């Protein structure tokens, strides 16, 4: 199985440790993982703003970079959603269709494709609040949502539950959006920041030491709010916990 690693621009730039953890974690399962060095982005900022035409060349580049892999894995739910559900600015050739159907968010890849049942190396004796990115939750269906009447499930919780010593902190509004919303975070800065502050307040009230998520972009926004508020919370990507980060 040949796996291509996609490291989204935020992760590349601000959280290289998340990219490294994702790579190492996948390699622990004996996969051959490659990171095409000419990758940039999935086209989400443009598509998200409605500028599909402006996204076309970026999408083409993505397909050129990743066309040759059996699976494309990325530590980001919103990028996965972009590729799988919204990469429509370009002609839907077989290569494009292949890439779109083979792109997986890390948690769903571990849970659904590899069907991992243990992380013997992982131990995280801390109180952790889980944040599900909205795209991951409601478009990729990584967990049940409070809006629907459905059997409760959570793929990230199932994986984190295999980590020794971890304790979950419950939020009062677990699947309320944190206000990042891609370009929303800069175009509608006021509401975005207020939603982020409310999210941080909820996390603080839960008694969490750490917040984790399979999406760096939401956490970058939340962490930015938390720091400005002087809130004592640490943010860590789920890939790092699963890869055995200690703190």
């Amino acid at each position: 199985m040949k796996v291509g690693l996609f490291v989204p621009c935020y992760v590349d730039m601000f959280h290289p440790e998340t990219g490294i953890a994702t790579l190492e974690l996948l390699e622990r399962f004996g996969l051959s993982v490659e990171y095409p060095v000419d990758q940039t982005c999935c086209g989400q900022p443009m598509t998200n703003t409605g500028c599909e035409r402006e996204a076309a060349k970026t999408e083409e580049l993505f397909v050129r970079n990743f066309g040759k892999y059996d699976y494309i894995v990325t530590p980001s739910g919103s990028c996965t959603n972009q590729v799988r559900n919204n990469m429509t600015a370009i002609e839907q050739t077989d290569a494009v269709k292949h890439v779109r159907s083979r792109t997986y968010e890390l948690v769903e890849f571990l849970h659904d494709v590899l069907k991992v049942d243990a992380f013997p190396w992982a131990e995280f004796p801390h109180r952790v609040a889980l944040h599900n990115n909205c795209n991951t939750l409601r478009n990729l269906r990584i967990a049940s949502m409070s809006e629907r009447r459905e059997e409760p499930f959570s793929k990230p919780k199932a994986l984190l539950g295999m980590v020794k010593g971890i304790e979950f902190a419950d939020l009062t509004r677990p699947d309320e959006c944190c206000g990042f919303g891609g370009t929303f975070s800069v175009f509608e800065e006021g509401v975005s920041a207020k939603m982020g502050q409310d999210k941080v307040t909820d996390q603080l009230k839960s008694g969490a030491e750490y917040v984790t998520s399979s999406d760096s972009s939401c956490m970058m926004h939340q962490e930015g709010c938390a720091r400005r508020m002087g809130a004592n919370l640490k943010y860590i990507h789920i890939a790092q916990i699963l890869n055995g980060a200690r703190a």
Partner: protein
Amino acid sequence: MTAELHEELTDPHGEQLDHGAASSRPLKSRIAEPQPRGAKIRGNRPVDQSEAANRFMAATEHEAMHDARLWDLRQKRDKEMHGIEEWEELRNLASGIKEHTLSKLDYYLELFEKNATANGIKVHWAKDGAEHNAIVLEILRSRGVERLIKSKSMLTEECGFREFMAHNHVEVIETDLGERIQQLDDEAPSHVVVPAVHKLRTDVASVFAKTIGSDPDNADAHYLTECQREATRPLILSAQAGMTGGNFVVAETGTFVVCTNEGNADLSANTPPLHIASIGIEKLIPGLNELPVFIRLLSRSALGSPITQYTSHFRGPREGGEMHVVLVDNGRSERLGMEKFWPGLKCIRCGACMNTCPVFRRSGGLSYGATYAGPIGLIIDPTFNVHKYRNLPYSSTMNGSCTNVCPVKINIHEQIADWRKTLAGDGEISPVKKVMMKAAGEVLASPVVYRASLPLGRSALRHLPHFMLYNKLNTWGRKRDIPETPKQTFNEWYRKNRKSQEKSQSEGENS
């Protein structure tokens, strides 16, 4: 003027009794936070929702109350949903029935007209708001009506009905308490179900003090309601005509159904001898068999109550009376022809999408500057005026909660994304967004340019991707810290630690 309290609502010591959700205590000593007003409307210029939202959030008490109240409705809705095993099946059914009816709308409309006429209802057709207003005015004038009592209707808001009637010297009295508050304050409703939800009790006290002479220092909900009742009842009793909307129009029986919690639609319809119902053409359902699906969903989705207090069926004029139904198009036929946006017509105006919307809860419904606020507003307002409402589809994080609470399964968040595409394609996008996205598209399409644009080693303000800070305003950093830039990007780490290995490995293999 002081309102008299009914004896049964007063305990032996003269204290008011608590009554459920509206229980309240007089607020006297605090200085009230003034109510933030809605979006500034400047002719046809695009409405700036975020400007109004910022003012709403600056009024922290209002914002906190608004968010808490609507979130409470959302939670009550969830509780009701869990009580119904077949909830998701009901949503499927409701959506299917609406889609079916909309796909044969001409047939069902004519069927309704035929059956309603046989029931003694006079059916009128209005192609837009102006026609609707003219039809109603004509009915009222020819019968010498000077005062009309009315229950809440979003359609009449669409038509600018109240202003039109004021202009033509017909007095209109709203009978829904929240709507009456908004009328007295000369403000539009901020929510389709709870029109004054953005107001604190102190705001209502000051509106009533100015308009009906209640005690400005008494913000007790019970007292205020009682004052309004005393002030409005005489007007209701002396009105010569009553107007309602209609939640569901039943083609097979030629009847229509109105759902309220205050019974005010019944008051409006049954007190005067003349009843006019203004109804949008999308409200049709085939028959009474289909009705319960909607009745079970409507109030549970809206307020988290199993059913509205009043679910009234109207099937014809009473003896000596008259009943008119005005079926209004006002852009609906055109919307029905829009490939991506026609499903918005399935809406039953329950407001669940507003209650769940994190942006709506923090902005207030008046910040949208349009008849319909919140998620459903974002996807139908631009059908009325694409230029004026072109910014609204951006007032969303596209988190998708709305789509999943919607009882008729409208794909709201997908339509928001589609509107953004449509607007950008039609040149209805702000120049800032356009320039930023064009630049981002070029940078991200080229690995070389992209790598060269990365922020390492530059000033803090540049420590964000190009597309976030292109406008130099650093909106990111106003209320959020900017992430620290690590020593190296992942790309650099990989090239150093893995790429070289790959190379030496393959070189090793070759030799």
